[in-house]
């Protein structure tokens, strides 16, 4: 339980929480989905659920780019690491994600050259400094990181660095939200919209949610007050029977998005006809691949990958948790076979995974209660 005076601006938080209680119709149950894993993290870390009345439920969305990758794609990337002379590079978040034959870290322990980078440009630099090796970068992320990967590829071409390739697993947020709304087992009343993805794509791409699906959506920042203010704005819209896109994160998110970033993405990437997402199945036009003009830097074309579809272990309910159908603690493996120390799926490993967030902030506090509920 988080007490109000533990926050930075307790009076403002208290007032906003009070406003939420005033606006929420006691006869109604609200289900708001926060799309982005960063918001899930904030919500658990700051104990924001405790500040909401019981009839407002926060549902975790699929906005964790590591979590939504099917195990087969991890295997494909790691198969490239097995080629002699290849240096496999990825963000730290990827290192403990389980593939069928182990995680990147486990591959490293078995003798393959696996390294953490904090920027795709550092993977490129590594290639420049190791001309006799081939450096592959396992690119992941929504539209937040895709522009950086794009710029890196443009730089590789300009500089003529040929011992470098990208294994592209960038996915796009709009089709994921569409899949949630199309799903028969979901009932979502409104969305707490992504923060950093929106700095790139802006607020316009969400218009169809408000107009065609008649659901309010508020692009939101990551501070406790941001999320609470967003809930106020969503409640106000619902009470007034309005449905529109609003920007609560104006200090960072421009309505029009980032033109340079969108241009870089369009130069280097195109949409795959379809891509498999853990939990959501095959979604059309939901992921990026490298254009023919940059084929030379496309790891999938330079190396042949197995491309085998690998399903999650039967007992694991990663897909349902990703969709928001199940809460992390409702998965049968949660806290038992699956923990951050020995994860069965990426949701327990990634900093944006809802299982990891729940485990680290809720489960540890009251393990006895949690196991009663599981």
């Amino acid at each position, binding site marked *: 339980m988080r007490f109000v005076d533990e926050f*930075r601006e307790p009076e403002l938080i208290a007032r906003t929480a009070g406003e939420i209680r005033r606006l929420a119709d006691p006869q109604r149950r609200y289900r708001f989905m926060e799309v*982005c*894993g*960063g918001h899930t*993290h*904030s919500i658990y*870390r*700051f104990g924001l659920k405790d500040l909401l009345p019981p009839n407002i439920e926060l549902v975790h969305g699929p906005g964790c*780019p590591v979590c939504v990758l099917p195990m087969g794609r991890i295997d494909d990337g790691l198969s490239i690491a097995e080629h002699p002379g290849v240096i496999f590079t990825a*963000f*730290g*978040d990827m290192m403990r994600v389980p593939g069928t034959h182990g995680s990147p870290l486990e591959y490293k322990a078995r003798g393959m050259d696996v390294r*953490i*980078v*904090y*920027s*795709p*440009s*550092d993977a490129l*630099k*590594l290639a420049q*400094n190791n001309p006799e090796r081939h450096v592959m970068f396992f690119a*992941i*992320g929504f539209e*937040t*990181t895709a*522009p*950086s990967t794009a*710029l890196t590829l443009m730089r590789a071409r300009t500089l003529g660095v040929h011992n470098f390739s990208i294994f592209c697993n960038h996915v796009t947020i709009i089709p994921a939200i569409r899949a949630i709304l199309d799903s028969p087992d979901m009932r979502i009343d409104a969305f707490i919209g992504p*923060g*950093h993805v929106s*700095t*790139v794509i802006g607020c316009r791409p969400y218009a169809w949610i408000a107009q065609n699906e008649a659901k309010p959506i508020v692009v939101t920042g*990551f*501070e406790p007050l941001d999320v609470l203010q967003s809930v106020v704005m969503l409640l106000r819209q619902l009470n007034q029977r309005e449905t529109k896109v609003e920007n609560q994160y104006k*200090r*960072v998110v*421009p309505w029009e998005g*980032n*033109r*340079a*970033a969108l241009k*870089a993405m369009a130069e280097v990437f195109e949409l795959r006809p379809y891509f498999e997402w853990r939990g959501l199945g095959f979604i059309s036009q939901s992921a990026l691949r490298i254009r023919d003009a940059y084929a030379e830097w496309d790891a999938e074309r330079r190396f042949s990958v197995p491309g085998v579809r690998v399903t999650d272990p039967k007992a694991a309910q990663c897909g349902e948790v990703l969709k928001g159908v199940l809460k992390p603690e409702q998965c049968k493996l949660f806290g038992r076979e699956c923990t951050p120390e020995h994860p069965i799926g990426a949701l327990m490993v990634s*900093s*944006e995974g809802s299982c990891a967030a729940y485990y680290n902030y809720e489960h540890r506090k009251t393990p006895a209660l949690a196991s009663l509920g599981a």
Partner: protein
Amino acid sequence: MCLAIPGKIEELLAEDRDLAVVSILGVRRKVDLGLIRDDRAVPGDWVLIHVGFAMSKISEADALDQMRMLTELGESESAMEEARGYGLDGSEELEREAATGGRPV
């Protein structure tokens, strides 16, 4: 990776108008400004950085808020690890230059 790290532009690099030396959480690193070219950022400006690329220009007040929020989120260690990790091969040179008072490469 949803970590958005605030940094202050110290110097624009002469040989590449898209690269700048930025001080981030106590270390100096080269950051790519290619995504915010239109913002015409100059030394003294604050930016939000994501995987080594500046994503947007922000006010100093918002930058300080973001730093405090990273601490409250328990992410300040990860953020510092990330900042220190930028420039796998260039950072040692930067720190050496900075220590000797020389100009960064």
